[in-house]
């Protein structure tokens, strides 16, 4: 087990193994997102209350899931980096932040747009919406911190600490709909419990969620590979690799 973790922490080994994994995640992401989109947009039945505006759920929920999962991943990676000094964890954390911010924006934007026909307003300062907005600012904070230090190690530490502290916001987002009275409906979709929607509505949502997760893994693998080359550019194996292809 420890040998495996040590290997995984080695940039050279990670670079090789991720090259083999990457195409599968890209293929899964493309397939799942295309199938989920066609199914969700054209084949799922309209909601009896919301009509066709409910089709926003197929981008809103996967984006919101990713927004939160990516932040948790960043916090876990930050912890691994701080405790065991595994550089790969820090590289991955740095590379996933922009996608997390983008997904938070998508969740907020699609939620606001969805709110107009459903709630009659695009924004309310309620607990769910506000805590998601805070998540967006936390992402901006993490990204800005990384650019604010001359030394990479200080930047990595600062970003890791902010991710580890900011992750407290995630349970607040999750339980905000139960703790406070909010406009936002409680969770309609969960991996662990029986869905509250008919299968024809629920299946495309599950497919989209899986597709978004595959996309996140594919992008993170690809960008972390780039970051390895950037940070390890003076290492011999990187020079040999670059020398081979030039």
């Amino acid at each position, binding site marked *: 087990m420890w040998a495996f973790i040590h290997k995984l922490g080695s940039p050279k080994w990670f670079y090789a193994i991720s090259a083999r994994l990457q195409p599968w995640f890209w293929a899964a992401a493309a397939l799942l997102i295309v199938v989920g989109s066609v199914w969700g947009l*054209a*084949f799922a039945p309209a909601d009896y209350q919301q009509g066709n*505006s409910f089709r*926003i759920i197929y981008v809103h929920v996967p984006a919101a899931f990713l927004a939160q999962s990516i932040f948790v991943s960043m916090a876990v990676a930050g912890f691994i980096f701080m405790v065991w000094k595994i550089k790969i964890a820090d590289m991955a954390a740095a590379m996933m932040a922009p996608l997390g911010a983008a997904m938070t924006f*998508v969740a907020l934007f*699609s939620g606001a747009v969805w709110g107009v026909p459903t709630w009659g307003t695009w924004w309310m300062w309620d607990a769910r919406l506000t805590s998601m907005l805070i998540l967006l600012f936390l992402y901006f904070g993490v990204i800005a911190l990384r650019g604010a230090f001359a030394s990479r190690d200080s930047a990595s530490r600062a970003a890791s600490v902010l991710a580890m502290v900011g992750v407290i916001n995630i349970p607040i987002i999750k339980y905000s709909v139960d703790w406070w009275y909010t406009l936002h409906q409680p969770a309609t979709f969960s991996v662990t419990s029986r869905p509250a929607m008919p299968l024809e509505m629920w299946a495309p949502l599950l497919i989209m969620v899986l597709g978004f997760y595959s996309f996140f893994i594919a992008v993170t693998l690809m960008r972390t590979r*780039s970051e390895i080359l950037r940070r390890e550019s003076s290492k011999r194996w*990187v020079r040999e690799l670059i020398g081979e*292809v*030039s």
Partner: protein
Amino acid sequence: MAFDSLSAFLAMGGHGVYVWASWGITGLLLLGVVVHARAERRALLRSLRRRVRREQRHAASDAVATPVSHQEGHARES
């Protein structure tokens, strides 16, 4: 199929603006992330390659007696 015609599909029962705005932004951002990741990788490989080549040239001019063979191939992404 939940719709009878293409125009009904686009109209989304009067909610077309909301549905397509949400899906449009999502699609654009996902696409943007992919385009950025690819451009980032290509630019990085280009600059690293240039650096390695420059160093090889320096090494070659230092060692006048034993010229280092310099392969100029077509650059391919690994």
